[in-house]
């Protein structure tokens, strides 16, 4: 197998299959044969919860080209719905994997969501999806500290669960404090497994809407005295993360992961001109938000994926003007260039050619 893989990866095979590449031929024989790209077959779809928006865990068998992942990392998953490929990020919920190893993702079906509701409601075993390599620095260092604090909210439990599972599988002997916020016990993802964790994992399941205590510095101190000096990982909705960040202000022990990046703005002023196929489709005053958000506010529906500048789904052609990358602050003023509109905010007047929406 490795010999075949090495052969298929050789420059000679690349030259023979130019310009399309070897994967374009292999996939036609078997979608699970790939040497450079990564795909995965859905082998199981298991419901986790039914209260509110349903949650399901999908077990994926990746191709041999999957290099594995570290606990806490995410993948970009591409799935074809009505002929259109949509890309979204999902944290791997299963423990760390090796080359070609099985993984799971756990998805909450957003009622207006294209991908999450498809994966939870319509995906069946046998479906083949596209994967990126795993990415993200929301991981536990080697060797792991003796004291760990995990805080998660809602579906933000997924990367944390991967970390806990990985640590326990390796016989971690330290202490884990695991604080999770959800709406009600019926909304609790992984409820059975959480109840059966060994004694060195102190689990606190909190339901603030049902009278549970909200997250405050005092509450954190009660559960974990001296929490600001404990290595902490937090993942959840923006509001929760904000409160945690306030509680850790000045401490360098907190790492956070966002499922939806917080809104960041550039300066307002000037105009944004959106064109499609060369024709102007909308002209709006520049509000300072990202070009993707401004396009959506103008009633256009440009293609997007991760909304955080990693998948390139939203790549558009800027014909005029200056844009600022809202994550790095870097400004770019080339007249003709490809930009990721999800992380680009216009600085003054700007003209952008946006791709046809994926519906």
């Amino acid at each position, binding site marked *: 197998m490795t010999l075949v893989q090495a052969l298929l990866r050789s420059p000679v095979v690349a030259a023979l299959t130019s310009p399309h590449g070897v994967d374009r031929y292999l996939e036609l024989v078997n979608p699970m044969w790939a040497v450079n790209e990564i795909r995965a077959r859905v082998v199981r779809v298991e419901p986790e919860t039914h209260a509110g928006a349903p949650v399901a865990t999908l077990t994926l068998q990746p191709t041999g080209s999957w290099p594995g992942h570290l606990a806490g990392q995410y993948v970009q998953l591409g799935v*074809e719905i009505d002929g259109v490929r949509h890309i979204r990020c999902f944290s791997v919920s299963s423990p760390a994997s090796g080359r070609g190893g099985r993984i799971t993702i756990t998805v909450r079906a957003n009622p207006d969501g294209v991908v999450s509701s498809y994966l939870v409601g319509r995906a069946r075993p046998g479906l083949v999806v596209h994967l990126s390599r795993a990415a993200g620095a929301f991981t536990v260092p080697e060797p792991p500290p003796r004291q760990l604090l995990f805080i998660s909210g809602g579906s933000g439990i997924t990367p944390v669960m991967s970390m806990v599972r990985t640590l326990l599988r390796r016989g971690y002997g330290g202490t884990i404090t695991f604080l999770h916020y959800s709406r009600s016990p019926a909304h609790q993802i992984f409820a059975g497994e959480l109840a059966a964790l060994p004694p060195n994992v102190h689990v606190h399941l909190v339901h603030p809407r049902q009278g549970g205590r909200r997250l405050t510095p005092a509450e954190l101190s009660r559960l974990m005295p001296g929490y600001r000096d404990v290595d902490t990982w937090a993942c959840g909705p923006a509001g929760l993360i904000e409160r945690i960040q306030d509680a850790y202000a000045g401490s360098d022990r907190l790492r956070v992961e966002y499922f939806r990046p917080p809104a960041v703005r550039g300066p307002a002023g000037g105009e944004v001109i959106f064109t499609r196929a060369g024709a102007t489709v909308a002209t709006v005053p520049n509000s300072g938000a990202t070009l993707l958000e401004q396009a959506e506010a103008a009633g256009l529906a440009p293609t997007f994926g991760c909304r955080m500048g990693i998948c390139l789904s939203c790549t558009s052609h800027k014909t005029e003007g200056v844009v600022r990358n809202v994550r790095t602050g870097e400004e770019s003023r080339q007249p003709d260039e490809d930009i990721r509109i999800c992380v680009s905010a216009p600085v003054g007047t700007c003209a952008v050619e946006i791709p046809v929406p994926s519906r």
Partner: protein
Amino acid sequence: MTTSPVTSARPAAPSRFTTRARPPAPARSTPPTRPVMLTAEQLAAFGAELDAIRQRIIDDLGEKDAAYIRRVVRAQRAFEAAGRALFYLPPAWPLAVASLSVSKILDNMEIGHNVLHGQYDWMGDPDLNSRGYEWDTVCPSGQWKYSHNYIHHTYTNIVGRDRDLGYGLLRMGEEQRWEPRCLGNPLYAFLLMLLFEWGVLLHDLEVDRIVTGERTWADTRPLHRGMLRKVRNQTLKDYVLFPLLTGPRLLPTLAGDALANLVRNVWAFTIIFCGHFPTGVATFCEEETRDESRAHWYYRQLLGSANITGGRLFHVMTGNLSHQIEHHLFPDVPARRYPEIAAEVREICRRYGLPYNTGRLSRQFFSVEKKIFRFALPPAEKTTGPTRTAAAHRMADRVRGIRRQREKFVGTATVSRRVV
């Protein structure tokens, strides 16, 4: 008034919205000399009807279109694999060549040309996306996209702007000044047919303008690397690796690969010339297209192209460019939709009294050949055509401006390919 079959549309006084053209034969009849007059309202209504067709198709795109293009890709890869494999079987040599030819034709036309137009960008599949697709021919797709999608489809048949009008090599209309070298028209056309993929590759260098001193060799430098890399990859596989892999049958394989490329060249040339140069296809001068409305753009696209009739398989093998009119009206709509739109477009044209140029392959081809020979010769009489007027010189200045813009574009799009 000349009886020239070349229709030349010129602006008519007094309203600049009134468009006038001597139309070609709607069917087989002789060209009427009556100009086509559309009032501003009619022109706008005509444009709105075409917009409505486009919107309807765009809204309906989905699963079926995705499945179709994937089926064509699967067929192309199967023909390719079969072609390569059959070279090991000496008696099957003609079959191998045929199979490989079909593969290259499908790859370049129904897949490559159409994907590079962005017809399938909505699928979000990076392998079928105009940003990244590379085709089985020597011209790098990024460079072709510029000269074709931008220059040719935007400035279709505008004399002095659309470099596909004669490809800077042929004299295809009386608006182009006759020079003694035009006597070679039929020979140039024949060579271009045999070497079409190389012609497409070199098109971007604009050698004709280097010869006339309007452009320097140094101006073409940003293109060289991409060209050389693609030429190396294509020749390495077709003329070195696959022949070597067949061992003692090296020479027959080499000849077979060359023949398959030749078949594709002749086919592509034929389809493209029959879509653009049959008798009756109009050319335009720049004034009438300045500040052009979208409706007028449609009008120009319609008058600037011609269709070829044929069966379903024929249409697929032409990449549906047998529906050149629909392609020029809706360049980014998946080509498999053109046949279904065609009847409607034709009916609209009938209602507005606009010509719809269509005919059998043999008829369109003969018509193109006639033109190639006719324009090899100097004009018989003094024409009133806009040969080298002050306007033409002004136009040349503007074209130079566009070219400067283009060099910039090629620089960012194909050389540095940076996404910010």
